[in-house]
């Protein structure tokens, strides 16, 4: 396992210059994710209009993998429907857990996190933001 496979330039760029960092003032849903084993703490908020994610932001602090993953995720889900976002999350879990497959354009910069699959102890870092997003979105389920 080579470090360059994990800490790619794209990941380090998202880590050092995160996109969509901050809080949405009046989010439709938000949720907090906490990784007990390392202390990473993240807040994901989404603004939904007509079933489409109009805005997504994250705040908090954590390691390069969890922060880059959150930055990439918020880029990726903006403009997608809630169901589409959930599908991408499902594909993302498969990718970082090492399931063989063609992870093409749909994954955007998230493809740069594929190397995480070779570092099993870091999978939880990569999925923290995505699980937190799913928890936030689940808050809308009972309203449907």
């Amino acid at each position, binding site marked *: 396992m080579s470090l360059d496979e994990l*800490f790619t330039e794209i990941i*380090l760029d998202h880590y*050092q210059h995160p996109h969509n960092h901050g809080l949405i003032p009046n989010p439709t849903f938000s949720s907090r994710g906490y990784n007990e084993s*390392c*202390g990473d703490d993240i807040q994901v908020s989404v603004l939904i209009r007509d079933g489409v994610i109009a805005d997504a932001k994250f705040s908090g*602090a954590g*390691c*390069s993998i969890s922060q880059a993953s959150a930055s990439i995720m918020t880029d990726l889900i903006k403009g997608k429907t809630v169901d589409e976002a959930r599908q991408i999350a499902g594909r993302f879990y498969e990718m970082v857990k090492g399931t063989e497959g063609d992870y093409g354009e749909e994954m955007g910069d998230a493809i740069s996190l594929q190397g995480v699959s070779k570092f099993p102890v870091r999978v939880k870092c990569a999925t923290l933001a995505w699980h937190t997003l799913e928890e936030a979105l689940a808050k809308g389920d009972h309203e449907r």
Partner: protein
Amino acid sequence: MMRSDVKNDFPIFAEWKEKGRPLIYLDSAATTQKPREVIAALDEYYSKYNANVHRGTYELSQLATDMYEEARAKVARFINSARPESVVFTRNATESLNLIAYAWGLNNLQKGDEIVLSEMEHHSNLVPWHIIARHTGAVLKFIRMNSDYMLDLESLKENLGPRTKAVSVVHVSNVLGTINPVKEICRLAHEAGALAIIDGAQSAPHMPVDVQDIDCDFYALSGHKMCGPTGIGALYAKYELLEKMEPFMGGGEMINEVFPTTSNYAKPPYKFEAGTPNIGGAIGLGAAVGYLEKLGLQNVVEHEIELGDYAARRLAEIEGIHIFRPKTTGTGVLSFTVDNVHPHDISTILDSAGIAIRAGHHCAQPLMRKLQVQSTARASFYVYNDKPDVEALAAALEKGIALFRPRKKADPEQTVRDAENNVKIG
């Protein structure tokens, strides 16, 4: 002086060297590696003497019982307990502390009574008291830590009062390496009429401990942090206290007579060892303390302080590293953070160089908040570590810092071009 070939006593190092991936193990504060003698003791017990203890109706059982009780005597001698019956075998220091909290705390604390802890406690000396405080209405107070990561004894004195029933503090911090003045803390606790409880999980493995000299009422230790197997620990307690205390758990071994609706109990330490104990583990722990005694605990502590000091100096030379360790005392525990590199990333970088450290909150979340960090990286040294291990640590850290050097914001078009090139190359 520490023998220079100690590493050879621990088969795991040869094993990984053979695999072509030499192991630099710097996580002994979490758990230590096991010397051949301990592994052999387990093998010998299970191969030749396995039987249940304290059922001496046949020779094999008597032999197992003798070995189990001999292990108790070894642990007692190791911490200079006045008598072996003061040593109760538990699973680990966490269980030992829970035993005190439940068997003593739950039955002796009243609403408004006070327990004094410190700001540098491990969760194992916090959470049991949270539970007991909720049940009894007792109040928890905290000894402040000063800017040199030492406990402020003035703060202890301020916290002691007529309602103080116990003072429970860590002997050596698992995060900072601070060695607390436990003898003085016990004296002050007793002066206030309170019991003194010492969490020795990080002291028993690393330095000579004399429970009679410290004059603590309770002392908790974990076997796996001192070359012993996992799942075995001990609680030392003054015998009169054990006699007065209610049992922690009920079942076989801990009873004298049992009737349908009542029972009376065996004498300590058996009163606190319900069910078949971890016989093999206890025998393994006995072998571990024997091994450490042969190395010499004074040698062990000197070796670790020397390595800890050396590592602290070496890492301080690297720009961007911040060390959390007292200037005045410190063991072989070294917590640090690195500018621009998260502890979890540090751990991965070091892992790729075959170096095992711990990254996280080290089961001390209140201390992390006090230090104003989310987590730290921690290298912890033991008898088998040496200066080349420290050099490897420093070199790998320098490499990681270079990898994470701050970059300018990427030009999005350039990133796209790079990605396209990568695809072509791939």
